[in-house]
C-alpha cells in the first residue's frame, strides 16, 4: 500500500510514520486530504465560471418549481377531467402534450404531477434532514453511548425490509400526499443521520472546535456556530441527490399502488400508468413526458448539487 500511494508525500503519512495508532492516522488522513482538496477546488472555482449547463439546470428547476406552484392559476384544463372523445390523442393544438388513456390532458397532469413529485421529494427529504440531520449533528459531536444507540437504531431501520414497512404503514394509515411524504421522509432519516453524523464526527476534533471548547464555549454554541456551518454543505448536497432518488422511489410505490390516491397525478404514477395496460406501445407519450421531465430535473438537481459540492468540496465518500 505505501508504495502505491507514495505516502511520503502527504502530511498524514508523515504523521503515520510516528503514529502508534494506525486507525486514527487513517481518519486524520482522510480529514487532511479532504482539507487539501477543498483548497484546490476552491481555487478552481474562484476563476471558473459556472457554465451554461449550470444556468440551464437552474432554469429548468426554476421553471418546474414555478409551474408547480402556479399550477392552479395557470390556464390549464382540470388534470383529472376525462374527455372520452379525446382518448390517447397525440400532441395537438388542444392538448399540447396529448392525452392519456382516459382522455386527460397530459400537460396539465404533468404540471400538477410536478407539484406532487416536488412536494414528496423536497418535503420528505426535509423531514429526514430535520430529524436525521439534527440527530446526526449531535450524535457525531457528542459520541458516547448516545451515538452508539442512534447508530444502532439507524442500522436497524436500514436493515429492515423496506417494502414490508411501506405496505404495512400504507395499509394502516392510508395514502394521502401528506402520509406518503411522511413515510418516505421517515425512511430517509437514517440516511441523513449517517451522512451528517460522519461529517459532524470529522469536524468534532478539528482544531477550531477544540479551540472553541478550550475557550469554554458551551456545547450548543459550538454545535451551531462551529460545526453546523461546516456540515450544511454536505447535508444540502446529499439532500439534493436524495430528492432525485425519492422522486423515482415515489414512482416505484405508484407502480405497486402504494402511492398517492387516484386520480391525483404524480410523475411517478404517470410513468406507472404509461407502462401499464400495454400503454407503452399504444401511447408512449404518457410515459415519455414525465420520464423526460424527471430526467431533466434529476440532471438539473445533480448538476446544481455537483457545482455546490465543487464550491464546498464535499467528498461524496462522506455520503
Amino acid at each position, binding site marked *: *500500500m505505501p508504495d*502505491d*500511494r*507514495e*505516502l511520503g*508525500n*502527504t502530511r498524514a503519512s508523515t504523521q*503515520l510514520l510516528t503514529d502508534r495508532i*494506525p*486507525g486514527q492516522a*487513517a481518519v486524520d488522513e482522510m480529514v487532511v*486530504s*479532504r482539507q*487539501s*482538496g477543498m483548497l*484546490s*477546488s476552491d481555487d478552481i472555482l474562484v476563476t471558473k465560471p459556472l*457554465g451554461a*449547463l449550470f444556468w440551464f439546470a437552474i432554469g429548468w428547476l426554476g421553471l418546474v418549481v414555478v409551474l408547480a406552484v402556479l399550477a392552479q392559476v395557470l390556464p390549464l384544463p382540470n388534470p383529472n377531467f376525462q374527455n372520452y372523445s379525446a382518448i390517447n390523442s397525440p400532441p395537438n393544438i388542444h392538448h399540447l402534450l396529448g392525452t392519456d388513456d382516459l382522455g386527460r390532458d397530459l400537460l396539465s397532469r404533468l404540471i400538477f404531477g410536478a407539484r406532487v413529485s416536488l412536494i414528496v421529494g423536497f418535503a420528505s427529504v426535509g423531514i429526514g434532514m430535520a430529524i436525521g440531520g439534527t440527530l446526526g449533528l449531535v450524535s457525531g459531536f457528542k459520541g458516547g453511548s448516545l451515538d452508539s444507540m442512534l447508530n*444502532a437504531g439507524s*442500522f*436497524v431501520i*436500514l*436493515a*429492515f*425490509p*423496506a*417494502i*414490508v*414497512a411501506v*405496505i*404495512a404503514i400504507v*395499509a*394502516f394509515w392510508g395514502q394521502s400526499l401528506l402520509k406518503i411524504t411522511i413515510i418516505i421522509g421517515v425512511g430517509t432519516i437514517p*440516511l441523513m443521520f449517517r451522512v451528517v453524523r460522519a461529517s459532524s464526527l470529522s469536524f468534532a476534533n478539528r482544531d477550531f472546535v477544540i479551540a472553541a471548547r478550550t475557550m469554554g464555549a458551551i456545547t450548543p454554541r459550538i454545535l451551531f456556530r462551529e460545526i453546523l456551518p461546516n456540515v450544511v454543505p454536505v447535508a444540502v448536497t446529499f439532500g439534493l441527490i436524495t430528492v*432525485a432518488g425519492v422522486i*423515482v422511489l415515489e*414512482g*416505484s410505490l405508484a*407502480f*405497486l399502488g402504494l402511492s398517492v390516491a387516484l386520480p391525483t397525478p404524480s410523475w411517478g404514477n404517470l*410513468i*406507472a400508468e404509461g*407502462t401499464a395496460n400495454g400503454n*407503452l*406501445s399504444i401511447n408512449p407519450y404518457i410515459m415519455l413526458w414525465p*420520464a*423526460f421531465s*424527471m*430526467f431533466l*430535473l*434529476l*440532471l438539473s438537481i*445533480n448538476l446544481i448539487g455537483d457545482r455546490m459540492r465543487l464550491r464546498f*468540496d464535499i*467528498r*461524496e*465518500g*462522506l*455520503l
Partner: protein
Amino acid sequence: MTKYLIRRFIQLVVVAFIISVLVFLLVHLLPGDPSVTILGPNDTAQNRTILLHQLGLNKPLWNQYTIWLTAVFHGNLGQSYLNHESVTHILATGAPIDIELIVLSQIVAFAVAIPLALVTSRRPNRPLDNVASTGTFGLLAMPPFVIAPIMVAVFAVGLHWFPATGYVPFTKDPAANLHDMVLPALAITAGSIAVYYRLLRSDLISTLQEDFITMARSKGLSNRRIMLRHAFRPSTFSLLAAAGVNIGALLAGTFIVEWLFAISGLGYSLVVSVQQRDYLVVQGISLVVAIAYVFLQFVVDFLFTVVDPRVIRE
C-alpha cells in the same frame, strides 16, 4: 480482530432479533389475517375460529412469537399457511435468484461505471464527461418498470435475443440460466451504474489533485499506470460504501423486476406473502434479509481494510 468479529456477531444477533420482533408485530397488526386468504369465500365466523385454532393464531401474540423463535433456534422457520411450502425451501429456491440478480447487475454496473469514471475523471467537464454524466442521469430517471418493458419489446419480442420471461436454475443449465437473467439483471443495473459512476468519478477527481499523484506524474509515469495503480484504489471508499447501501436495498427489494419477469425470488415472495398475511414466510424472509444486510456491511467493512489496510474501522 477477534474482538472486532465478536462485536460484529453481537451486532448481527441484536439487529436480527429487533427486526424479527418488529416484523412480527407489524404483520400481525395488519388488517386481515391468513384465515381470510385461506378461507376466501368460506370465511364464516365459525370456520375462521376453527382455522385460527388450527394455525395456532388464536394464542396471545407474545406466545406466538416465542413459539416461532424457539422453532427458529431449532432451525425450523415454519411453512406457508397457504401452500404449505416450507420457508426454508422458499429461501433455498428464492435466495439464489436474488443473489444472482444482484451479482450480475453489480458486475455490469461496476464494469460500466469504473472504466467510464477512470476515463472521464481525467478531464472533468469536457464533452466526454458531460455525455457520460448526462447519460447516467438518464439511467437514473428510468426506473426498472420503465426499462424492463422497453428492453423486452426490443430485445425479446423484436430481436429474439433473450426470452421475455422465465427462469432456469443455474445448477440445472448455466447457459440457459444466464440467458434468462440478462434482461432482469440489466433492468436493475441502470440505477447502480449512475450512482457508482458519479461517486467514483468525483472521488477520482479529488484524488488526482493530491500530492502523491503530482509526484507520480513528475516521475514520468504513464497516465494509465497512474490511474490504475495510484489513483484508483484510494478512490474507492465511496464506491464501496454506496455499493453496500445499494446492494442492501436490493436484498429482497427487486420485486418489480421479479414480478415482470415472472421469477419468484425473495422479493416476489416477500411482497406476495405480506399481502396475503402469510406471516411465517414474511418473518422468515425478513429475518434472512436482515442478517444478510448485517453480513453485507461486514463485507464492505472488510473491503475497506483491503483497499487501505490502515483502516480498522471503529
